[in-house]
Each structure stands twice: as structure tokens, then as C-alpha cells.
């Protein structure tokens, strides 16, 4: 492939994405989150039965309505806090901090996959295939964990992780290869590959990968020695995948800011024509970007099955593939930003359960908040006008 003379596509779209990600106002993501919580609050109030009842006799006793609104919104967000950071109603510190470890456990796959997509976005490639790459990584990892039990424990564990990384890298890299050789649009290919991955997973789990006695499409439990070690005892869901996530954050930072490979990635993202003229092999770089991106998604898959679920099921990728896109955008595709966004999403995930259990707030509200974040980020002008911020330079010109 090294000699293929790839013509980059018009640089406009990809370069604009890369530029927007890097040069945008850092306040926008914060405000987008804030605005989404406000919208979420409104929905919580509207869907609350007490509020609806109080609205019925608003003109008789208006105070009741305001009280009900306050109760419902404050109660919901208070529950969200208890479920995601610290449950101060618990008997002891050990029980209270359980919430935070749940947040960290949820945040792990989202953040790692988000890092993968961030690498692609910074390089001007819209990798929408997080879901598929997570699934492929998870399947490769599970197969190694289940069917190659010949090695001693630690080695088996490492090989299982490596298999997941490779699985994701191959699945992602193949898209890069297609783009380099045929000019295929990576957006369409990755979206379609998500379907391929989802249905192949389902097929595998109902046939050759299916646990012999299971009723549901799922694999046998993965061997104990292939699982991520728990970090804080069996009471807490926090596992070593969290450490891997932190290493991945540092690794991606180094890759994109300190390595020659990342320099080429960014050059391609910002200006493919100039990269080509500067002798950078565009085709190979497309392949590498997608392989690295997919590898991280695959790693996220391993943390899901070898850390949290401990078996391979159809829900392995859940919504992580798409959450990762949001996380990468919210974090401006900057590793530290992605970490922050990943923790936020992990917290939303963990807190939503408590919110539903305690306050009877539907868990979907959290999805609405997440979607609103995407909407607000995708529409910076909207965020700007809501918060009376000055126009961007480009909008003025």
C-alpha cells in the first residue's frame, strides 16, 4: 500500500472539524453541559406527578406548583449526586463511596473509546464505528479468554487484552485501508460496519460462542484468571481497567503531542493537501489513524467484558460506541478533556440508577441530557446566543 498515490479529498470538511475541535472556545462544552442540565430539569419537573397535580390548581395555590417543581428537580439531581459521587445517606464511608467507584467503572470504557474517536477526529476522520470496534475487540478478547486456556493466568490475561486491542485495530484499520485504496467515505463504512458487528455478534452468541445451557444469547462466563483484577476488593466494581484508562489518556497525549506519528496524524487532519506535498503517505496514515482509533475502542471492549460484565453478551457495546462520540466532542478531542467528559458520562450513568430508584425519575432523562449535550455542542451558535457570548471570528467574516 505504501506506493499507492492517494489523492486526499477536499480538505474543507475534515480540516474544519479538526480546527473546530482545537480552536473552539473551551467554555462552550461547559456551558453545553450546564444548559443540558437545565433542560433536563425542566423535563424532570414536567414528568413529575406532583407537579402535574399542583399545576391543576395553580390559580388557587400557586405556591404549591413552585414547591413541587423545586422538590422534583432538586430531589432528582440530589439523587444523581448520591448515585454518582458520594451517598451521604449511607451508614458509613465505605458504603457511601461505592457510588464514586461505580462512576469510575462506568467511565472506563466510555473514556477509552472516546480517546480512540478523539484520535480519529483530530486526524480529520469521522470514525462513527466505535460500536463495531468495541464489539470486535470484545469478541476477539472473549475468544482468547475462553478457548486458549493453556497459558498461566497473567499471560492469559495479557494475551486476552492484546487480542481485544488487535481485534479493534484490525476492524478499524480495515476502514482506513478501504478509504486509502478505494476512496470510500469512512463515515458510511464505519456506520455500516456497526451493523455488521452487531449482527455478527448476535449470530455468534446464538451459535458457536453460546454458553451450552444459557437461555439468552451469551457466552460462558470468562475464566477468572483472564479478568481485570479488582482494585478495591469485591465490594466495589472498580477494576484495573481504570488504571489502563489512565495510561491510555497519557499515551494518547504523548501520541498526539510528542510523537512524529501523531504529528503526521494532525497534519493530515488539518491539511491533507499540504501533507501530501510534504511527502506524508496519506494512505498509510489513514490506515494507521483508523487502526489506532479502533485499537482503543477494542481496549474499551476488553474493559467491558473482562472487567464489568465477565461474560460476552449482546449488550457489550451498549451505547458506549455513540457515547464515546459525544465524549470525544465534549472533550474537544483532547485527552484530558476526554477524561473529564468520560467521568461526567460515567457519573450520569451511575447516578441515573439511583435517580430512578429513589425519585422515580425515568432513566431516559439521563439520555435526554446526554443528547442535549450533543445538540448544544453541535450548535455552538445556539450556546453562544443563549449565554450572550461574542460571535466566533469566522461567523463575523
Amino acid at each position: 500500500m505504501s506506493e499507492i498515490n492517494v489523492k486526499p479529498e477536499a480538505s474543507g470538511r475534515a480540516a474544519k472539524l479538526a480546527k473546530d475541535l482545537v480552536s473552539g472556545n473551551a467554555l462552550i462544552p461547559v456551558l453545553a453541559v450546564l444548559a443540558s442540565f437545565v433542560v433536563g430539569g425542566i423535563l424532570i419537573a414536567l414528568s413529575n406527578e406532583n407537579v402535574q397535580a399542583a399545576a391543576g390548581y395553580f390559580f388557587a395555590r400557586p405556591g404549591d406548583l413552585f414547591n413541587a417543581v423545586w422538590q422534583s428537580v432538586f430531589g432528582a439531581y440530589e439523587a444523581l449526586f448520591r448515585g454518582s459521587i458520594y451517598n451521604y445517606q449511607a451508614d458509613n464511608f465505605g458504603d457511601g463511596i461505592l457510588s464514586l467507584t461505580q462512576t469510575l467503572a462506568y467511565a472506563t470504557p466510555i473514556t477509552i473509546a472516546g480517546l480512540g474517536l478523539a484520535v480519529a477526529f483530530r486526524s480529520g476522520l469521522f470514525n462513527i464505528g466505535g460500536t463495531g470496534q468495541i464489539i470486535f475487540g470484545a469478541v476477539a478478547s472473549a475468544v482468547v479468554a475462553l478457548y486458549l486456556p493453556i497459558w498461566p493466568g497473567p499471560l492469559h490475561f495479557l494475551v486476552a487484552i492484546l487480542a481485544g486491542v488487535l481485534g479493534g485495530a484490525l476492524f478499524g484499520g480495515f476502514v482506513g485501508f478501504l478509504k486509502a485504496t478505494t476512496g470510500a467515505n469512512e463515515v458510511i463504512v464505519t456506520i455500516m460496519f456497526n451493523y455488521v458487528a452487531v449482527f455478527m455478534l448476535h449470530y455468534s452468541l446464538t451459535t458457536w460462542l453460546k454458553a451450552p445451557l444459557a437461555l439468552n444469547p451469551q457466552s460462558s462466563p470468562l475464566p477468572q484468571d483472564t479478568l481485570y483484577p479488582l482494585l478495591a476488593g469485591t465490594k466495589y466494581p472498580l477494576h484495573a481497567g481504570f488504571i489502563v484508562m489512565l495510561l491510555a489518556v497519557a499515551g494518547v497525549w504523548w501520541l498526539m503531542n510528542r510523537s512524529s506519528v501523531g504529528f503526521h496524524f494532525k497534519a493530515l487532519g488539518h491539511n491533507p493537501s499540504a501533507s501530501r506535498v510534504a511527502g506524508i503517505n496519506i494512505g498509510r496514515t489513514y490506515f494507521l489513524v483508523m487502526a489506532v482509533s479502533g485499537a482503543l475502542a477494542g481496549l474499551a471492549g476488553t474493559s467491558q467484558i473482562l472487567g464489568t460484565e465477565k461474560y460476552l453478551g449482546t449488550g457489550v457495546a451498549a451505547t458506549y460506541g455513540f457515547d464515546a462520540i459525544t465524549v470525544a466532542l465534549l472533550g474537544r478531542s483532547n485527552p484530558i478533556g476526554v477524561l473529564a467528559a468520560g467521568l461526567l458520562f460515567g457519573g450520569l450513568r451511575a447516578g441515573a440508577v439511583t435517580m430512578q430508584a429513589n425519585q422515580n425519575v425515568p432513566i431516559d432523562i439521563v439520555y435526554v441530557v446526554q443528547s442535549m449535550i450533543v445538540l448544544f455542542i453541535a450548535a455552538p451558535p445556539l450556546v453562544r446566543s443563549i449565554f450572550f457570548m461574542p460571535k466566533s471570528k469566522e461567523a463575523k467574516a
Partner: protein
Amino acid sequence: MKLELRGITKRFGSLVANSDVSLTVMPGEIHCLLGENGAGKSTLMNVLYGLYQAEAGEILLDDKVVKFAGPGDAMAAGIGMVHQHFMLIPVFTVAENVILGHEPTKFGGVLDMAAARAKVREISDQFGFDLDPDAIVGDLPVGVQQRVEIVKALISNAKVLVFDEPTAVLTPQETDELMTIMRALRERGTAIVFITHKLREVKEVADKITVLRLGKVVGEASPKDSANDLASMMVGRAVDLEGSKTAAKPGKASFVVAGLSAENRSGTKVLDDVSFEIHDGEILVIAGVQGNGQTELTEAILGLQSSTAGSIQLNGQELLGRSVKSVLDMGVGFVPEDRTEDGLVADFTIAENLMLDRADRKPFVSGLNLQLKYLRELATKLVSDFDVRTQSIETKAGKLSGGNQQKVVLARELSRELKLLVASQPTRGLDVGSIEFVHEQIVKTRDSGLPVLIVATELDEAVQLGDRIAVMYRGKIVGIVPSSTPRAVLGQMMAGIS
């Protein structure tokens, strides 16, 4: 109609684009507004055209103060503008374009195309434009499209015509024809403002010259003044336009192109049996109107053009069939014609751009770790050696002026170990000061004993830089001649007449 601008001041934030600018243009006069890029010429004309509102000053037409809220007011008052970038709809006919905005109608609002055609013919005949009202504008050559723009201005009875850098897109022949048209308009009593930075044209047609520098009028000049004097006024210091180029001392023919042919995607021949050789210590200029195969030629040398036949040899080694990286490794320095698209990554810093083609080589990288300390040192040195005017090497390349961007590209290319320098329109869009610097660097490269290939679309540059000139037309080399060849002959060759 007499046009007078008095004390026009226009600010953009803290930037003063025009400061107390005054200008008087009499009917039947060609008044040149001369100045470098960014001197405030276009801003001034946009104030006149009602696109900008001035903070201070007034506009007088026939000694009466007028105020324009927009271009519509200006047009109604008899001011017409021929823009640098044509405001034409390519799929419309000439007549349709000309009447756009003030369409003649018959009873019941029916478009009166017959009247439109007649009007176009009338004006076309009056000035010898030779326009077919029913031709589709997109099919016409650039020079003819420009005449459509002029007709558009004349049809609304413009008494003052502003030409904004009108020759930038024209061939030498078309430029001559435009000059003739401008003279004809002058005879008819039109007041003409001619914005340009090309001294040759100024000297040819101007009756009066006003020189702008950094938003201020630095003085009036006469077309009889020497080009060097005019350039000095424009730049604000002594300028040597002819350059101090000594005669070339050519060595062996080290760069040989033989029988080079290439087709584009639709199968049209874009390079047709191109052959030439360049000696060590010699500059060969490929002259021609843009789009006659020059881009494809430089791309073929660099390994960017895939479907090529023939041979390109540098010091006996074949370049064709190699990857871009391997061509660069053989010592080919390349200055692309579009520096913002192909030469630089606008969002990267100056320092990052300086290692764009070498980020994976020692000493820029060790293992996979970029050596940022080395890069900073090198960038600091190159920025001072190549006189890049910037506050910091961390400034984004996109924020630099065109001249400084080109210096960054040159610094990157010339700081490598070179065996050949290829530069495509190296001074396109640059101001006089930067042109001087770029030309110096190119001649210096030649004098160090390298073969140099320059692609030029302007005769001035071709004659000034070239030791020999190869004229290209429709993918073919029409002829290779010494740079002392008369311009008229070169111009004819560029039009395909050999």
C-alpha cells in the same frame, strides 16, 4: 463626472485601514491607485461603493456631497465597479447577466430580452467589445467575462468606473486589450479609478497616480517617474526591481525531462511530450498562462501525478514512479503555487510547519519522540535567517501575511540538502518587499550551483528571474528562448503562436 474623496478615515477595531485619505478624479482621467497588499486600496473603494461606512470624511460627486448606504445608492449615483472576482452567474447568458438586478420588462412584467440583447450589442459595438449577447458566460475566456462586467457597469450609466486589480487574471494580450478599452472609456469622459500594484500597467495608462501606504496617501506621482521610484514610494524604502542578478554560469545539465506526457482523469492530455533540461547554476522559467500544464508538470516531478509517461532524471536518477517522500529525499525542494493549500498547515505553528516534511527524520525525531528543543532552536534560527516577521515561532502559520508565509515555506525547503529547486509562482499575491526577498533567495540558490525550475504566469517575473524561458501552451513546450527575447514575442508564444 468629477469624483472627490475628502479625508476618508476607516477603522476596523484598532486597525486604521484608511487614514485621512483624499483623492480627486476628473472626468476623462485614468487615476491609478497604487499600493501594496494591505495598503488600504480596496477598503477605500469599498467606502466609495457604499459597502463600508467611513468614520470621517466625505464623498463628493461634481462637488456635491453624497452619502451611500449601500452599493445600490452608489450605482444609482453613477459609480460602477469591476470586481477582481467577477460577480457573474456562469450559467446565464451575457445579456441575462448584464440585466440582472434591473431587468427591462414589457407590459405585464414580461422580461424584455430583445431590449436586453439590443442594449448589450449597442455598448459592445461602441467600444469594440465583440460580445455575443447569447453566449453562456461560463464558456467565455476570462478576458471576455471581464468585458461583460464592464458592460454591466456601463449599462447603468456609470460615470465613474472603478477597476479593482483587473489584470490579475488576464493574459498579457488580454491585459493590452483592457488597456485599450480603458483608454476608449477615457475618451468618452468616464472617470476611471484603476487599482493595481503592477508598475508596468500604471506607467502605460495612468494620467495621475496616487500612492497609498499603510492606509495613508504618501504622495502623488507621475507616470513618467521610473518604476524603481514608484516602487520605493509604495514600499517606503529604496527598492531594486531589476534585481542584481548576475549572468548564469551554467554547469552540466543535471535535470533532464524527456518526452513527458500525462493525462487527466477524463483522458485529456495535460502534458504532451514535454522535454527540456536545466543546467547546474541555471534558472529555467516555465512561462505560460495558468492552466496550460504547469501544475501537472510540477506535480509529475514531485511524484504527485500518477499517470505519466516519459522520464524525469535528476543527476542521472529517474524520479518518475517514486513516492513524494523519496523524491524529496533525493534533494528536490518544492515551493507550491498555492502555499495555504499545499505548502502550509495553517493551524500549525511556524515551528511545526518548518518540520512538516521531516517530522519522522533525525534530528527532528528520536525513536518516535519529537525533539521539540531542537525544533525550537532551528525555528528560531530560520525565522531570523529568512526574516519572517513574527512575534514568536509558536504563532500559527495561518495568521501570517502572505509574504511571511512564503518565507516559512522557503526556509523549510532551502534548509534541506537540495539538488534541485522547483518553485511554482513563488511570488503570487506577494507585496513588493517580499517579492524582492523571494527573488534574492532564488537567485542565491542558483548561484550555489543548483538547477532551478520556476513556473511563472507573469511575464515580468519570467523575464526577471529566468536565464532561459520555456513557454508552455496546452501542455506543450512552444519553445525555449533566452530571457532577452522581446516581450511581444513571448506574449505571442504564451497565446500559442510559435
